[in-house]
């Protein structure tokens, strides 16, 4: 039977690939960054069970890399798609790593010796990486990659330290972009989501005040593999953040600046992050400013009840009007109205976390054009019918799962990924 193409190596893409591979179908898993894992790999803990995120994800990533039926194409993007269900011809462009994948053992010596520092996007900019780097300690494949835009050799033809120190001679500056032609029976789109940049909501001071973070930046800060090793030292002056405020619906449920929809999961991950802070230091003061607490998932309400009663997290119904920074003490003041009591007041905080909207990835546009699919007004893939065919699309043989068609949490993405795998298996059998 023809293989199946899975686009996107996050938790949804991994689950779809494993489901299909386990039942005997060959799978091509195309991921645009140097490693699979997606956003889930960046998280510290997951709710409601407080598992360490990478500890439950890495085994699945390793299963993918060792599965005889799965071929992982990293730093690759789908450029052209022709044909139809049962017989898609797909052109994939693989960007060069400038590192020979079979020789590199991921020892990391090259990164240690590389002189060039670059903003580390995987650490959400809270730390630097080198021009030659391994994306994160549990990356799969555990292979280095050269960022040609910042590498001294590619920019100015000098240096070459990495090839000198590499113990297994894996550096290959001559590597060229590679076009891979695939013929597959069906396509599963699992491109995931991106975090909305709240800079335009200037009243919250993101970008102006260094201690106003987005939720992803907080996840990296609190994570043991993060820039501070998990200590909550605030970015401005390294002071330990004792008082933290979470502001919900930043860029969501808004018809001016931002998006009108609700991102479904922020109330819960804010609760989780609040509990993490309380676990770090029970004496810390954590306030969550919300409008309607979204507790609709399995075990969610109980998780919130525990956060309130056991951990002492404080929930205040009121969307703060503004966040201010005292230019002398650098402490932040949040002005809000507790709409349940009607009094307008303020709270001091060492750090403010903005829970922003989960928006579509910009690459969806190019992929949609290649597939000949429609995107909705916010750039998410459109299901064939949001009620009766949520994971099918207008194009037979192309299925969608996870955040590629809207914000949802990990269990739903995983369930939909298996669902998309079922659809792909049905197509594979129909065109056997």
């Amino acid at each position, binding site marked *: 039977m023809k293989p199946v193409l899975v686009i996107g190596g996050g938790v949804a893409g991994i689950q779809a690939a494993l489901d299909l591979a386990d039942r005997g179908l060959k799978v091509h898993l195309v991921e645009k960054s140097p490693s699979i894992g997606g956003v889930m790999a960046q998280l510290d803990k997951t709710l409601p069970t407080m598992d360490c995120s990478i500890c439950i994800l890495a085994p699945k990533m390793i299963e993918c890399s060792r599965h005889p039926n799965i071929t992982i194409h990293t730093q690759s993007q789908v450029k052209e798609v022709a044909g139809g269900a049962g017989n898609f011809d797909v052109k994939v462009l693989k960007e060069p790593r400038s590192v020979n994948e079979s020789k590199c053992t991921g020892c990391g010596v090259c990164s240690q010796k590389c002189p060039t520092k670059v903003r580390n996007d995987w650490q959400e900019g809270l730390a630097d990486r080198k021009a030659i780097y391994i994306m994160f300690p549990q990356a799969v494949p555990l292979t280095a990659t050269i960022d040609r835009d910042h590498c001294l050799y590619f920019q100015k033809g000098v240096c070459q330290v990495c090839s000198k120190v590499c113990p297994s001679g894996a550096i290959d500056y001559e590597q060229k972009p590679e076009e891979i032609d695939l013929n597959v029976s069906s396509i599963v789109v699992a491109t995931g989501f991106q975090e909305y940049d709240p800079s335009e909501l200037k*009243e919250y001071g993101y970008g102006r005040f260094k201690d106003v973070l987005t939720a992803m930046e907080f996840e990296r800060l609190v994570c043991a593999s993060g820039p501070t090793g998990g200590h909550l030292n605030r970015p401005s002056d390294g002071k330990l953040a004792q008082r933290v405020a979470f502001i919900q619906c930043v860029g969501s449920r808004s018809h001016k600046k931002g998006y009108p929809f609700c991102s479904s999961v922020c109330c819960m991950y804010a609760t989780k992050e609040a509990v993490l802070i309380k676990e770090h230091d029970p004496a810390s003061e954590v306030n969550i400013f919300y409008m309607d607490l979204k507790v609709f998932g399995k075990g969610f309400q109980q998780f919130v009840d525990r956060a309130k009663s056991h951990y002492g997290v404080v929930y205040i119904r009121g969307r703060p009007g503004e966040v201010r*920074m005292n*230019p002398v003490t650098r402490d932040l003041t949040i002005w809000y109205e507790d709409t349940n009591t009607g009094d307008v007041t303020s709270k001091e905080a060492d750090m403010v976390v903005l829970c922003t909207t989960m928006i579509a990835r910009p690459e969806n546009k190019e992929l949609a054009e290649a597939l000949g699919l429609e995107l909705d007004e916010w750039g998410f893939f459109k299901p064939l019918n949001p009620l009766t065919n949520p994971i099918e699309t207008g194009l037979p043989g192309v299925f969608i799962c996870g955040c590629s068609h809207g914000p949802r949490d990990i269990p739903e993405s995983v369930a939909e990924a298996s669902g998309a795998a079922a659809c792909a298996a049905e197509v594979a059998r129909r065109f056997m």
Partner: protein
Amino acid sequence: MKYTLYLGCTVQSEQFGLEASVRETMPRLGVELEDMKGASCCGFPALSSVSKVGWHYLSARNLAIAEEMGNDFLPLCNGCHLSFVETMHYLEADPDLKNLINTHLEKEGLQYEGKVKVVHLLEVLHDRVGEKKISGELVKPLEGLKFASHPGCHAIRPSDIQKVDDPEDPRKLDNLIKALGAETFDYPEKIDCCGSQLAVASGRTTLKIAGDKLQAVKSYGFDGLVTTCPFCFKMYDGRQRAIKGALKDSSLDVPVFYYTQLLGLALGFRPERLGLQLNQSPVDGLVERIME
């Protein structure tokens, strides 16, 4: 650059400091001002609360006169500026209202079409004259002085129809202060309100709101507060003594200036030509230091 100058009630009746300093400094920066004939109140504080149509009629009346004179229209007061911008917005959105108001204007031989461009003093100084031109003309740079900028609510909000400066992080007045050789820095209360429009309903609260800002400005170590709006100036300068009483803060002594007064001093004009004798707040110390 030629503008039709609109004074507005507060400036023409009592805030002479702003008008004097504007008339004195603008020619030096190549800005020509032409006075209006037959202008009246813009209607904003007077009628907007009791007669919306009356408010838009009065604003449209001044806009109609300005349209005839042909120059860009420069109201000196933030309140009047917002009133004209909002009136143009409402009349464009509601043709019936526009026709009703034009039937009244015809009685005075006037006609409002909405072609005139309303410009704010900050836009003239920052965008058209420019910081380089201003710092080039300096005679007495204001070295070592730290001023807090107060652009005023009606200049920067609402940003859906007001395009003078960024509503949350206004920088133009700050840049203009730096152009005089002085220093300034961002402080959280910069975009807070002076509370003047509340005076008619609750004087005590007005003084508290204005007082909070003055105390903040003092606490951050600024040497003085700078604004271009007569309403805000009247609150921070004219009512500072009343604020001290209301807040029981005898130590409150914040010198308050119109930007064009500081501009005048920096360009070497005499203080009395800039109406500095009318400032009620303790400005003498700073004026003498600048004049040395």
